């Protein structure tokens, strides 16, 4: 293939990539993904097991909340 052919192929591929991303963006918008970001940002928390406002990682045996329990954590 000549250089020009590759440039066209590349442009088509890059164009598809761009359109694909744009289509997904449109889907996300229609789906209401952007309508309540405040709640969305909190989906990582979980009231039962890992609630908001609580740190969930410490050096081993150094959880200040549970100083005596810490060494046995996971037992």
């Amino acid at each position, binding site marked *: 293939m000549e*250089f020009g052919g590759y440039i066209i192929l590349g442009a088509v591929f890059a164009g598809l990539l761009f359109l694909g*991303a744009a289509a997904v*963006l449109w889907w996300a918008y229609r789906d209401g993904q952007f309508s309540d970001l405040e709640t969305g940002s909190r989906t990582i928390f*979980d009231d*039962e097991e890992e609630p908001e406002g609580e740190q969930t*990682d410490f050096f*081993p045996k150094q959880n200040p909340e549970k100083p005596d329990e810490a060494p046995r954590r*996971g037992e």
Partner: protein
Amino acid sequence: MSFPSTLTEAMSPTAEPKGDLWAKLSEVDRSMKVLGVFFIVCGLLWLMLGTVFALVASIKFHNVDFLGDSEFWTWGRVRSAHLNAMIYGWAFNASFAVAPWIMARLCRTRVRFTNIFLFGGIFWNIGVAIGVYGILAGHKVGVEWLEFPAYVTPIIAIAFAFIGVWVILLFRWRQTGHVYVSQWYFLAAFFWLPWLYAMAQIMIVFEPARGVVQALTNWWFAHNVLGLWLTPIAVGAAYYLIPKVLGRPIYSYYLSVIGFWALALFYNWAGVHHLIGGPVPAWVISAGTVASVMMVIPVIVVAINHHMTVVGLHREGWASPTIRFVVFGAINYTAVSLLGSAMALRSVNEITHFTHFTVGHAHHGVYSFFTMIMFGGIYYMLPRLLKREWPSAMLISVHWWTTAVGVTLMVVVLSIGGFVQGMQLNAIDPETETAAFEFMEVMRNMIPYTVMRSMTGVLITIGHVAFFINIVWMLLQRAAKGSDSKPTLLTPGA
């Protein structure tokens, strides 16, 4: 909806909040246990092997004869073995461990058909092992980042396709309405890279493009591995881990969403800046330069967000190994990206190109940013998978200090050395109007810097050994009685 039992049934979307597959976080963790441990162990082994190659390659810069009488250990082979073991071995296995696990947690679904993923993973690692051996045996393809001999790349491409398909299935099984920004990042990564890899293989190895197009394909691919794989995986992980560990939502979730879409739309165009100074039409380079400079937008967004989320919680963060590593990585994401954008400027690149500066930049990206975030992710993940505590806080500290200090020094040394190197290579003697330094002279002038690089390498190696011992120790510890039925570690009542 009934519980789908076959794969075809399972492909139909179940994206309804709290459907039949909805699972507690601890249940998600349990369902990911085999996969997570498998990929962490594979990644760890590659990290150690890649470190050996790294030290050998580094020592050869100042002791040229080191291991010089064995063709397996000649510099050209060891260097490529290092790169490929670290990227396809360590970086990809770490991604396969951390990203799908976070994805599963965010989808709140018990994962199924894990054999697809495991199958892909096993063949991936077999492929990488043959590939690295092939490089050492002298069968490599002379194209950076695509050095694996042609006889293994189909295995890798197919393995990757299995993995990509499984992660997309996992997303289809989600039991949550909102798609969190990390999920977007991971989806983009797992969806795109198998295509890019297959395309690059075809254009380089099986139906080779020649000349300039080959170089363009090479760097378009290599840069997309960085931009559409390593970056989204690590940034996505950071967007999950930082707020998660601290228990505080992302400072501006809105900005993070914008940042994602900016990356998704622009990054693909930036790769050609690797060819500045090469025989490529100027407009191609200019387009690449524009896209590279555009990348400042998502970078600043990530910087603001991660900084503002941590602000005021520095002491709390310091108490968490995960936060130490991940925040270090996030800060370096900002730094390496801004420096990278500056390096895309022609006037800067004329000095730094083809010098140690570039290698410093590479480690700044793949190590200070990506690898450190993966370390952080593994520190968070493994106790949850195994329901066991890390055995040694001391080893974590050793790992942290040696790698953080080691890699920072390495980047500084290589940047200064590379800058001096570039200036000397470009210098013109005003009287004779020819090059002021002979090439070999410049090489010799670099020895102090390469010696220092080897020393930082030793420091980092100590950290890797500490990490290795801690993981092996943790795996060998017998699970305490009855721990299997307990929910996620560190939760009240656990």
